[in-house]
């Protein structure tokens, strides 16, 4: 709370902070009428879930969280868009089902997962969340409620996956849960000494492991550039898993904004090697709690406050296979050259593009950097984006708050097709967000 009279909203990065407030109701179909945007749990980092300048209200879907139907034979489920992944997994993991794709936090809604077309550690195998969506119920700009799917109103469906809420309010999501052999994860991790080894390790693990991801220490340059830890995992077989079900984990909280030095360059410099060397033995393996495995950051509630009042942003890009072997190294060199330090840097390999017209992943390597907002953040993001464009890559809209429209256009050859479909469904430009004003030139 900031004591001022006008309420404000922000994404998970807490930058930017804009005037606005959420309207919420169990009756999502009713409350979405006439509103320009919906949001879920606000776990997108940047401005995609924020109202455009001049719009006071956005709809919050979070009270619309009912499971409408479930078929235990097929795993087919239909639910209201505000259902959170946390709630979902607590109901279905004990029944032997889990979401086919999960992001790195359980505090997201189905609507947010569709609108960002999220990907997980298993992207190389399962694709984005959208690949498992069977149908969507949407309130489109002219006020109608309609259903779209890969076969019905296909253009609307494709534009909605990854469409950042700009094609309509998602009211209901139908998708298929994946059957899992046990509620536990078997994981292996490995210390990696530089970026080239990392790419090699990811590529090698991909065919054998359904889930892979790496944490990079971005503070060390030169020969050690891109050293870190590679995590591989799969669902445990019943024979290896503990007999008892995993108990939901408790959480610690960061009670207030930490002062600026907490995430200063120095502490990032100190912490990253610690994280690296904590993984003392070269290899570790064993059974892991699913929450520890999928959602390690959720253990610390409000960890975004660590970055202090100015907040943070995340830069996530994919560097395509076509860019060749050294792309990741060249990218990290740009980061290091700009003195950019990132507390957390996550690397992952991506599989083929899915149906979503603006979905982020394409075959290559994705790198995500958490960056504290400072005076020079815009320059750093610009430099990173110029490098991404050079390599033929693109950035992830759900993380973004700083990318320039001309940069985004240069990264995204599919943009015109998406804009055309969007115009067809919303000729008057009723649906918009802070992000769409910034990136797509929507009228505020």
């Amino acid at each position, binding site marked *: 709370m900031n004591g001022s009279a006008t309420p404000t909203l922000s994404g998970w990065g807490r930058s930017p902070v804009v005037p606005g407030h959420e309207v919420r109701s169990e*009756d999502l179909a009713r409350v979405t009428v006439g509103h320009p945007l919906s949001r879920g749990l606000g776990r997108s980092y940047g401005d995609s879930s924020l109202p455009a300048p001049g719009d006071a209200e956005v709809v919050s879907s979070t009270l619309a969280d009912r499971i409408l*139907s479930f078929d235990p034979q097929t795993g087919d489920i239909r639910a209201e868009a505000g259902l959170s992944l946390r709630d979902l997994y607590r109901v279905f993991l*004990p029944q032997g089902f889990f979401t086919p794709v999960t992001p790195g936090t359980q505090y997201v809604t189905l609507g947010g997962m569709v609108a960002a077309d999220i990907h997980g550690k298993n992207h190389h195998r399962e694709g984005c969340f959208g690949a498992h969506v069977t149908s969507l119920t949407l309130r489109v700009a002219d006020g109608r409620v309609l259903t779209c799917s890969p076969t019905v109103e296909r253009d609307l469906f494709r534009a909605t996956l990854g469409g950042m809420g700009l094609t309509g309010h998602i009211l209901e999501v139908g998708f298929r849960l994946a059957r899992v052999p046990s509620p536990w994860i078997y994981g292996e991790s490995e210390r990696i000494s530089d970026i080239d080894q990392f790419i090699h390790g990811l590529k090698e693990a991909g065919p054998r492991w359904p889930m892979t991801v790496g944490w990079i220490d971005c503070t060390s340059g030169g020969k050690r550039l891109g050293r870190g830890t590679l995590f591989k995992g799969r669902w445990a077989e019943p024979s290896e898993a503990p007999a008892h*079900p995993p108990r939901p984990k408790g959480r610690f909280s960061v009670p207030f904004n930490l002062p600026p030095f907490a995430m200063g360059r120095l502490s990032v410099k100190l912490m990253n090697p610690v994280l690296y060397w904590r993984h003392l033995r070269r290899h570790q393996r064993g059974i892991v709690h699913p929450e520890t495995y999928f959602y390690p950051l959720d253990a610390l509630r409000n960890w975004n406050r660590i970055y202090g009042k100015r907040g943070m942003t995340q830069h996530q890009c994919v560097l395509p296979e076509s860019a060749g072997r050294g792309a990741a190294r060249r990218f990290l060199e740009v980061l290091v050259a700009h003195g950019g330090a990132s507390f957390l840097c996550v690397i992952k390999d991506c599989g083929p593009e899915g149906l979503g017209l603006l979905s982020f992943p394409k075959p290559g390597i994705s790198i995500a950097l958490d960056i504290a907002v400072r005076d020079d953040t815009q320059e750093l993001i610009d430099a990173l984006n110029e490098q991404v464009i050079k390599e033929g890559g693109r950035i992830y809209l759900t993380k973004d708050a700083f990318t320039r429209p001309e940069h985004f256009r240069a990264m995204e050859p599919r943009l015109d097709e998406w804009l055309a479909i969007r115009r067809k469904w919303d000729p008057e430009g009723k649906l918009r967000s802070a992000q769409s004003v910034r990136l797509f030139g929507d009228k505020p």
Partner: protein
Amino acid sequence: MKAVFLGATKGIGRALARQLVARGDRLFLLGRDGNDLQRSAGDLRARAGATAAGRATGQAEPARVGFAVCDLENPDGFGRALDEADAELGGFDTVVITAGLFATQDRLENDRALCRRLLTVDFANTVVFCEEARVRLLARGGGTLCVFSSVAGERGRKPVILYGAAKAGLTHYLEGLDHKFRAAGLRTVCVKPGFVKTGMTEGLKPPPFAGTAEGVAAQVVKAIDRGKPVLYAPGMWALVMLVIRALPRLVMRRIGF
């Protein structure tokens, strides 16, 4: 437990119903909107399935959750709805009422029709519904009647005069039932929620110790199990109300609370 539930589709009622099915209780839902009831019944069925699987009792059928339309504005339908629930559940032992109307004092002062509707629904009709439930419960030797009143009924207060008056009446009625029928096996649980962040309080500024629907629901489950006659939720409100009740009129007249 086999419970008839009026108001399970929204807010604290929704959270409470979920916690009850999650531990294996059987529910029958009543409410005014059939479509809404059907959606909530589906939700509760899916969540009940989880416990069935968790207990690994080999019971493949997830619990049925039936529902029937029953509008607090139409007392003629109360008896029939309760009988339908009774038949479907094979005799209920608990009745939970979380339904009710809410409007700000401002709106109620300026809209006579709304004012009348709210007073009728939150007091007269709720009491009539309770009477129908009471008779049925007592006829089988007792059971639990859990009704949501409010801390607003604790004392005449400027911001909630009309809503508070209806709830005050309801609170008194439930206390009377408790005195008269507890010995006969009827356990009344009068829940007095303080400020809880739900769709009902949307748009109001939450005070420092606002509760969550889940937290309050967990307290209510315990109170039902123990047959606790009065529950303040969150518990902090018991203290707040202790002070409010003790304040002299002169002071109450001055303050805005």
